């Protein structure tokens, strides 16, 4: 009975100490000024231009990472083709992540990714390519990039 009491108590203490995971958008994917007819690629290694997300939570816990990626940038009535290749994502869960040389490189942002959080969480980098037409109307274009993360329990 005493052992059962201790075991139940420990279980609830552990469950109560689990940290929630949260995502912070550190940087949007910024193509900047583009010329009509001239495709523009943003490398995942380019700080300040590549998209950067930071996930915090329980050290060592595995999370699933899933992007919902747009296929075009839009402004009212017009759009620009947007391409994400299967190597456009990178992840680093070291305490000091290195965007220029991430720990896990050339990942497919179209797939569900499974990685463990580090002491400082985990950082995700994303590049992409925009392909404006020769007659692309000038102006500002945007699109949403949605990132969903969840503990897998592993």
């Amino acid at each position: 009975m005493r052992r059962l009491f201790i075991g139940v108590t420990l279980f609830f203490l552990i469950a109560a100490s689990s940290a929630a995971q949260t995502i912070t958008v550190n940087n949007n994917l910024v193509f900047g000024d583009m010329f009509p007819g001239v495709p523009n690629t943003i490398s995942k290694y380019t700080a300040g231009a590549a998209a950067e997300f930071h996930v915090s939570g329980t050290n060592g816990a595995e999370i699933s990472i899933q992007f919902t990626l747009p296929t075009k940038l839009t402004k009212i009535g017009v759009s620009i083709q947007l391409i994400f290749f299967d190597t456009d994502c990178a992840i680093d869960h070291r305490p000091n992540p290195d965007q220029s040389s991430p720990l896990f490189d050339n990942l497919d942002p179209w797939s569900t990714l499974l990685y463990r959080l580090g002491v400082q969480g985990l950082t995700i980098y994303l590049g992409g390519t925009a392909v404006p037409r020769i007659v692309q109307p000038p102006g500002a274009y945007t699109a949403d990039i949605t990132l969903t993360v969840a503990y897998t329990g592993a």
Partner: protein
Amino acid sequence: MNKKGVERKFAAVVVAAIICFSLSVNRVQAQDVATGAATATVLAALSVIAAQNLIFGNIYQGVASTVANNINASSGIFNILGQGSAGISISFVLPQFIALADGSDRMTIGFSSTDATVDSNNTTPATVVAGDGWINTNPNNLPAATVIGAAGQTNVYLGGRVYPSVDQAAGAYSGDIILTVAYNGT
């Protein structure tokens, strides 16, 4: 403590733990979703206008005629409009002859390696100076460093020479001069 006392205490702890667990489950999110953005700004579209044809006017059989690239009234003039200071690639497709509308006779036309001028300051063929761009450059190999002028326009001026034969048929001759421009991303 007797057995009943221990059981009551255990039951109380279990109830408290369940309440605690319920609270903790509420605190831990099952997942999190964040929305970032992809953004781009498309700059001004590029266009080119043939503002003035290369005009040789009246010519005589057997007498070659030249139009320089610095004659306001007769040099070929092309206006390129786009994003100020943007780098562009430009190239001519030049004819080897001009012809009567019905195609019954042709006249040779030639362009030398100094027949073009690129003017990024939008002056005129007669007033352009070296600081405005490239004077007397090769129309078959226009400068790779050409940019749209800061004001959003660059002009190209073109001269040439026609060689009518001694038995050239009388009439109006014409030929297409094509200037292609494209942003090069610089």
